[in-house]
């Protein structure tokens, strides 16, 4: 009961598939309050990630996450490239030297990764960014594990919190990123980055919960 290298790679391929499926949707969300490229950006990045990950076979989890991070950073650009890059970079750092991750390891790694995203982007909750999906997810995961719930149901709770967080960005007025130029006009639209972060939490639950 923990996260193996195979499960970690499944998380990446699940996320790549989800981004590809939702490329148009994410781009559409970004057209309303940004510059209409979030789906294109993330898909370009995850398509570049996949061959790199496949070429890694036999490496450790830390190397895997760092590879994902570096590839996203060098192919995505814009705001989301460095932010998702930072997230995976911190996941890599947290999992250094570990062949497998316990549920607690993963929870701590995720919390540290979200903190790194916040420190990189200076976004706080309610700024209408990916943080509004990531932070509730990481907090739900930690709380449920602390309460003694099993990994699978804790991951599902994290996914649910991310989904809820993404939906709750709708009424918000953006205070970070390109959407903030719109001022009040940004209210009424779901944040694209929060939406892709929810997809990431779904990909995680699917990859990690099954191996339990």
């Amino acid at each position, binding site marked *: 009961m923990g996260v193996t290298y195979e499960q970690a790679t499944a998380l990446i391929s699940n996320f790549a598939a989800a981004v590809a499926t939702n490329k148009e949707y994410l781009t559409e969300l970004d057209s309303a309050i940004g510059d209409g490229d979030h789906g294109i950006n993330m898909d370009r990045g995850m398509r570049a990630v996949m061959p790199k990950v496949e070429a890694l076979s036999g490496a450790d989890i830390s190397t895997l996450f760092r590879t994902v991070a*570096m590839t996203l*950073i060098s192919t995505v*650009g814009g705001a989301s490239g460095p932010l998702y890059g930072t997230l995976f970079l911190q996941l890599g750092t947290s999992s250094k030297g570990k062949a497998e991750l316990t549920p607690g390891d993963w929870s701590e790694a995720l919390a540290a990764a979200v903190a790194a995203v916040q420190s990189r982007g200076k976004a706080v909750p309610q700024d209408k960014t990916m943080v509004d999906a990531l932070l509730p997810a990481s907090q739900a995961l930690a709380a449920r594990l602390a309460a003694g719930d099993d990994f699978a149901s804790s991951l599902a709770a994290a996914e649910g919190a991310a989904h809820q967080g993404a939906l709750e960005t709708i009424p918000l007025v953006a205070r*970070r990123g390109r959407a903030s130029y719109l001022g009040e006009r940004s209210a009424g639209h779901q944040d694209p980055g929060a939406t892709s972060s929810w997809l990431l939490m779904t990909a995680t639950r699917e990859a990690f919960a099954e191996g339990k």
Partner: protein
Amino acid sequence: MKKLINNPENVVREELEGIAAAHSDRLRVSLDPYYVMRSDAPVNGKVAIVSGGGSGHEPMHGGFVGPGMLDAACPGEVFTSPTPDQILAATKAVSGGSGVLHIVKNYTGDILNFEMAADLAKEEGIEVEAVVTNDDVAVQDSLYTAGRRGVGVTVLAEKICGAAAEAGRNLSQVAELCRRVNSEGRTMGMALTSCTVPAAGKPTFELGDDEMEIGIGIHGEPGRQRRKVAPADEIVDLMATAITDDLPFRSGDRVLAFVNGMGGTPLIELYIVYRALARFLGGRGISIQRNLIGSYITSLEMAGCSITLLRLDDEMLGYWDAPVNTPGLRWGA
């Protein structure tokens, strides 16, 4: 969409190949990752200056690489910020041992990517300072937003700081000067037509035959307000009032006046705009000491213009007049 391009996906690469073919005597172009550097870099002992941002704003920034201005420029895809690996590679390539200044326009993507690159460069022992330009008075500035966009003043900062670096100022002096240029400069832009991002294939916004956008950015973002088109003199009044009220610029101030075309507006119109601006400033006792008129920070083929005013002090003036030798800006050399 009608453009002189081949494949929308290859626009940036082919542009860089064109730049490489055209300016191989003075510039070196890296295609993996993308960056443009002066061919005599690194210049030993000189503070190096690196800038960059999305493509589609030509000649900015690649056209401003050369003695007296930038050491390197990192172009992203059209209207997309460059990635840290490009910026890191450029920073390492031009670092002459006296530190590197990153001049970054205030967009979240640009800031984050430059920050990451700076962190990586510092890990490798290169001293990096970053200065963010944010001169667009059309955007509300506040602690609780991403703040004002960096626009026209970026060109002026690159020229002035480039000269200071060439003159042997150290990193903190050049960075400090860059911050001062930014804080003394204000810009406002307007559009008569939208631009068309090659990959999108259709205009970013639709504008009626009798409409204009006031307060636009440089990525085809719509502006502060949409209005009926007006005579040039009225448009200039509107923009110059917003600019001068903001700093504020006062009677007796000495300024550099920069009338910039957005890419699709010909020079004949920019001179008519400059005429109106000179009258406006003259009427307020603001003295134009230097000017720059032309298309230097563009939005693809957008028709329109921006006006930048920079309040000058003697140091800025001296560095503005110093020699510069780049494809986009050249004098004294």
